[in-house]
């Protein structure tokens, strides 16, 4: 009797489990079908923004506009970290729990556009802004003549300083920049703050000396150029600065740059223009800045080139795309349209980010810092246009190499090894 009941219970529980599993399965398939033929049903949208770059005003604008335009739908912004973003997007975009709209670094976009992770936006190109969009970023989001990832914003790098510490004239050439940085260096002050993992800042030195990251030959193979003549020359300047002008950790990351700056231990700080907001934050803010001390007279200039003028700098920034597995592609597209609308882009511009739409650039604030950024952006360059470039970044070969350079290693040896690694990834 007792045993019979046991059997019954077991059978029942087994069946329940089986049913539950089956239910999960059928649930999935029905929602998949739903996504393909649902026109504009209401839904809950998840938008992934990366880092703190997008200002709070813009976030509020996006949520309010979206929810008033799409009655019954909600939009949630989930903030992700830049570190490890490629890995995280790869897993989440291919899962059944994919976010709907995602921001991705402009140099990372091609890893996803080339493998079908993003929805095709070719037909929406004109609706999203058409030729008013930043064309360099349109290119970064295009693969095989199809438009997958729209420009979001661009942020150039400028050199920040405070006259309380840097008392010399603003340098007009790269050589002057290096020599003044070294002159300003003491035991407590870094003439230039340069944590070893920050490889973006090294690129202008390579470019200004005639070097290159990697170029594609006619037969399609990539050749890396850190060990080219100009590359070596640039890297030697980089090492000179890292070793003789910077007290930053040789294996440090370019995070929380406002901390050393607010301690008054930094001369030049080469950073994306949005670092301004971290530095001029109130001392009792959640992420404290120093609006009362070294941030009070924050100033900036564009990194000078070898022959004067603005140096060629790395064009940072983001693209934004609709996930291929989004359950509400129509809603996601409408959110994307809001983010590229004049109203939204105007907010970005007002906060000193270079907007994705050229027409909105007039709303950039008329101050020294923004203009320094704009001057730098006018002469900016991108990383190699290969879908495999994101793998180079993800594998941290650049970070590792620049940490070794910051340690004072042999530049030619490091550059040759780095080029071999880059070539083996790009040509694999």
């Amino acid at each position, binding site marked *: 009797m007792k045993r019979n009941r046991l059997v019954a219970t077991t059978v029942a529980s087994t069946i329940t489990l089986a049913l539950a599993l089956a239910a999960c399965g059928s649930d999935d398939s029905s929602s998949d079908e739903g996504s393909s033929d649902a026109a504009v049903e209401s839904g809950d949208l998840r938008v992934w923004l990366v880092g703190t770059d997008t200002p709070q005003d813009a976030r509020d604008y996006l949520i309010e506009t979206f929810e008033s335009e799409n009655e019954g739908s909600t939009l949630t912004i989930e903030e992700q970290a830049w570190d490890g973003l490629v890995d995280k997007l790869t897993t989440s975009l291919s899962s059944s729990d994919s976010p709907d709209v995602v921001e991705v670094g402009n140099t990372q976009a091609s890893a996803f556009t080339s493998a*079908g992770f993003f929805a095709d936006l070719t037909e929406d190109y004109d609706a999203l802004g058409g030729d008013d969009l930043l064309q360099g970023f349109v290119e970064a989001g295009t693969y095989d003549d199809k438009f997958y990832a729209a420009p979001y914003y661009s942020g150039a790098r400028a050199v920040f300083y405070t006259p309380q510490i840097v008392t010399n004239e603003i340098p007009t050439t790269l050589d002057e920049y290096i020599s003044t940085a070294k002159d300003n260096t003491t035991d407590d002050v870094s003439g230039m703050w340069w944590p070893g993992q920050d490889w973006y800042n090294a690129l202008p030195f390579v470019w200004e000396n005639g070097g290159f990251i990697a170029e594609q030959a006619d037969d399609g193979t990539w050749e890396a150029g850190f060990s080219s003549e100009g590359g070596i020359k640039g890297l030697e300047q980089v090492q000179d600065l890292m070793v003789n002008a910077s007290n930053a950790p040789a294996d440090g990351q370019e995070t929380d740059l406002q901390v050393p700056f607010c301690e008054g231990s930094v001369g030049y700080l080469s950073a994306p223009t949005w670092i301004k907001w971290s530095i001029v934050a109130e001392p009792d803010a959640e992420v404290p800045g120093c609006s009362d001390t070294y941030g009070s007279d924050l100033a900036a200039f564009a990194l000078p080139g070898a022959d004067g003028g603005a140096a060629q700098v790395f064009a940072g920034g983001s693209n934004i795309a609709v996930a291929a597995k989004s359950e509400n592609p129509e809603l996601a597209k409408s959110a994307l349209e809001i983010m590229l609308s004049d109203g939204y882009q105007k907010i970005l511009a007002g906060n000193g980010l270079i907007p994705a739409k050229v027409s909105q650039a007039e709303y950039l604030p008329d101050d020294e810092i923004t203009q320094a950024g704009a001057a730098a952006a006018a002469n900016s360059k991108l990383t190699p246009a290969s879908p495999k470039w994101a793998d180079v970044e993800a594998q941290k070969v650049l970070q590792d190499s620049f940490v070794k350079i910051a340690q004072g290693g042999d530049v030619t040896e490091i550059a040759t090894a780095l080029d071999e690694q880059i070539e083996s990834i790009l040509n694999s």
Partner: protein
Amino acid sequence: MSSTTLENPTAERSSGSQPERKKRKSPLPWFLLAPTLIVLGVLTGYPLIRLIIMSFQEYERAQLMGVPAEWVGFQNYTDILTDPDFWTVLARSFVFMIFCVFFTMLLGILIALLMLRLNKGFKLLTSIGLLLAWAMPQLATMIVFGWIFDTEYGVVNHVLTSITGNDWMGHSWLINPLSFFFVAGIAIIWQAVPFIAFTMYAGLSQVPGEVLEAAQLDGTSPFQRFRLIMVPFVRSILTVLIILSIIWDLRVFTQIFALQGVGGISEQTNTIGTYIYQVGMAQGHYGPASAIAVILVIIMMAISYYYVRQTLKEEEL
């Protein structure tokens, strides 16, 4: 797969030692086992089979989005086994594992012996301390250790500067691979010791007091009593703990990965866990990454073979 391995011992036992049960061919055991088997099959069996399949395919990011994968035979395996990087990483993982297991076991046993001697209050205090260390999430642990060893603001550099008088500020602990693994090792051992200490304490407290007392009267030294009486009593526990520690420390991932984010050079500090992640997740080469994982599974199985055999033997007794 799991059903066939289970069938044998059951069948042998019912036919061998207890022949009177043979006639009762009730399906009940299978019904009782069904939920477990299903869960095991879904949670363990499926991923493992998928992993093995993937290791024979060319599986990249595009395949994740539904592009059919191509079969490449043993290509992934030959690529990996001929890649010097793989062997470097494997050797590094083994050396690091031996270091960690040795100190974990040593400290764990010493703490267990200490707890045998402590009075109630201190025993409680030690237990709570151990539990807290054990309960702390690995990622949080690593953030704290990252701060402790921070180059500019770390307390270790500060203390060393004030003790030695030399200027340690700005000394990077993570940039040199040896001291990187020293820091990682401290964090891993710190968190692994509580489990060993508790289990050893449980085992050692079962050693009959009268035997120890008799040995003491016969004039044995404390070390002799430990080596000749306690260790034989807890030998099976020791074996299990060592094997588990070997497995845990060999496939360590979180601590190394988090510490690489704090500083150091990834290429020189990868262990097998982070290497699989690098190849698979970061670079998107899922085929080769699966092949490495399969090789690791085989290594683990070889290590735990002794443990499994021992367990089965004891069950038969």
